[in-house]
């Protein structure tokens, strides 16, 4: 039955922090099997939106469904279908990579034998096997992203929600992460990720939404949003950036 539903549906999500409106009514339909990029400048509300979509942050108003399961009314069902890699959130980083994966697997109620098999495979594919018993806290930024991705993938979710998966990741690790995500989508999964790096989004995504100041400004397939221009041009126009004139900061030149 879940096949008929969109992978992720958001309706009129609103979040206020004190007197500042972070997300002002976001509607979004992520079709199953799509590779969905959520674009936006810093502070646009990407993290807040995704946190509300996956059950990490309670919205002031609005609802969210994962494959037809209401995230806030029936969190257990929705969370089973969902793999999440939040940004700016620590992992239980005083465990080694293998320990962390075992922990996440058992926490999801998985069979220990399955956890062992999948964890070993993930560590191998993500080139984390060499780290041995090094604690995750001592990992590099790229390795932390990779182990975070492994934790999100371990239970074989139908929808993967990733917040800034390519932030602070070196090109080699980024290519590896891209590869794995492509294979995941090709295998019938759905990926939603946030980013402000145009190249990555243009290369990967089938669908794009541009979020600015807490509302969706553009949404559609990559071709629809981009038109005949580059994605960056569209983005800067939508967000309304300014360009330096060369007059200011004169004291910086020697």
């Amino acid at each position, binding site marked *: 039955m879940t096949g008929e539903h969109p992978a992720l549906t958001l309706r009129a999500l609103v979040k206020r922090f004190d007197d500042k409106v972070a997300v002002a009514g976001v509607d979004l339909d992520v079709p199953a099997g799509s590779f969905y990029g959520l674009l936006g400048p810093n502070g646009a509300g990407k993290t807040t939106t995704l946190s509300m979509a996956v059950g990490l942050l309670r919205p002031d108003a609005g609802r969210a469904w994962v494959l037809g399961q209401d995230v806030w009314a029936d969190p257990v069902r929705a969370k089973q279908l969902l793999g999440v890699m939040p940004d*700016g959130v620590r*992992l239980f980083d005083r465990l080694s990579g293998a320990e962390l994966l075992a922990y996440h697997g058992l*926490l999801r109620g998985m069979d220990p034998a399955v956890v062992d098999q999948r964890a*070993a495979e993930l560590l191998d594919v993500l080139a984390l096997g060499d780290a041995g*018993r090094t604690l995750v806290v001592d990992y590099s930024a790229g390795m932390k992203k990779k182990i975070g991705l492994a934790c999100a993938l371990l239970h074989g979710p139908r929808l993967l929600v990733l917040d800034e998966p390519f932030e602070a990741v070196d090109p080699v690790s980024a290519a590896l992460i891209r590869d794995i995500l492509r294979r995941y989508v090709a295998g019938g999964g759905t990926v939603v990720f946030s980013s402000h790096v145009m190249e990555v989004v243009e290369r990967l995504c089938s669908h794009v939404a541009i979020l600015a100041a807490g509302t969706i400004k553009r949404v559609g397939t990559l071709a629809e949003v981009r038109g005949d221009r580059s994605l960056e041009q569209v983005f800067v126009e939508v967000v309304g950036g300014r360009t330096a004139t060369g007059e200011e900061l004169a004291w910086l030149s020697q």
Partner: protein
Amino acid sequence: MAVAVTGSAASTRRVSSRHFVRLKLRVMGNNFRGQGWRVALFVVGSLVGLWFAATGFFLFAAPGLADGDRYALMVAAFGGGLMVLGWLLLPLVFFGVDETLDPARFALLPLSRRTLVTGLFAAALVSVPAVAVLLALSGLVVTAGALGGWSAALVQAVGVVAGLLLCVAAARAVTSAFATMLRSRRVRDLAAVLLAVAAALIGPLQLAATAALRDADWDQFTSVATVVGWTPFGAPWTAGIDVAQGRVWAAPVKLLITALAVVALLAWWSRSLESAMVGAASSGKAPTRPETSGTPVAQFFPRALGWLPRDRFGALVAREVRYWWRDARRRANLVTLAVVGLFVPAMVNLGGSNVVDGTGGFGTPDTSSPVLVSLSMLFVGVLAAVTLANQFGFDGSAYAAHVVAGVPGKVELRARMAAFSVYVLPLVVVISVVLALILGEPGWIGMTAGSLLATYGVGLAVNTFLSVLGAYSLPETSNPFALNTGAGVARSFLTLLSMLASAAAAVPMVVAAALLGDVWLWLALPVGAAYGLGAALLGAYLAGDVLDRRQPELLAIVTPRR
């Protein structure tokens, strides 16, 4: 263009302590913005502080107001000395230090170490406890003034201010040094050092107090006070009294002793501060760990806990057990608990027996009584359980993993209790056996363990609720004693509340010890264990429901604001 560079260098102004103080006030103010409950907590904390300050003021002013010349020295030396001792030890055990200005944040600024230390020191003086202590001890100025006129009052005022500097410098130096030691991952050495320090500090005081109480001889009291007055603990507080009592020559020497102590403490702080700043940039080389062996799940479970079920509950327990040891902040709590849990009951029961002699029914002089043992176990149990009062704060944003996985609240709370008990239960056995052997009453082992288990159990129940409803975020620094602004007041307040509640719930054990006599020695262990276990499970059951409904809110609260 080079002109501009030299111009900016020339216009560099000196950074003074004033800047640090203003920075701290600004950060405090910004933290209050839009957080009504923080303002409320701060106000409550300030009022409590003011109340203590007023009480202290009148106590310290009493010898002057009542013209009690002979008590003045004693009140100053013992009262002030206790104050310094409190500033030394309490941050380690209960309260932590307010690190509104995290030293690591200044690592990249071109500041000399001297500027930094004096600046941070000045900022540390701007706090509710410091102001409260200043107010309380100004009572001594009144005493000195009443007994010796203006000159004595003036000297005493200088002494009180110097004493406050000493208190704050001691707190900072000790917590900072302790934090550095904990980071060095050589915990075994540390535990040994701590035991020695605790013994060294408590021992002499205990002997002095016991001797004084036993003889109740005022002259001996005075001579002890005189000696204390010549140590840094008492020197700042007794300078003015000396002037009032005609020993004018002593005042400058005592002020000099204080000044030297402050300088030494600041130098010590400055050294550990440097390592704290460097440590933030690079926490040193990761320890080489043995090569991987076994499957991920097998690696994850500690060998000693191999019997745990391979499910949610087992995984949570295993992770918590690892965290209590691997996380410096938690480890500090454990080590402190072990030290305090062993020493305080031993001291109370060995030394305090003279005080409550006769109230315990069948106590002969020089031995303790079941009531006293039960009471001291009440203290240890409450102290152990209160360690969990902010258990989700330890996790910080990592708790998101549990929210995403949808961990049931009851399982989570039961597992957390079980994991902490893996460390506490052996401690219970050790404390009971050691205490019974020291007292020469092996028959009391059951009663000691029983009261301890009962208190620990009800304490777990109370603190589980507190950890779900009254959590607060901890800063992500390497200093295990660091707290966010305002959290200091919140933490002390909630801790006090939960300790009172736990203690109240465990009072039946003490009453039983007082009323039942010898039968209780046999009944206490099964009854206490059952009472504690039942309370803990009930607490996990009830608080688990609350947690299920509050998971996202809890996550938001324990996530540090950046």
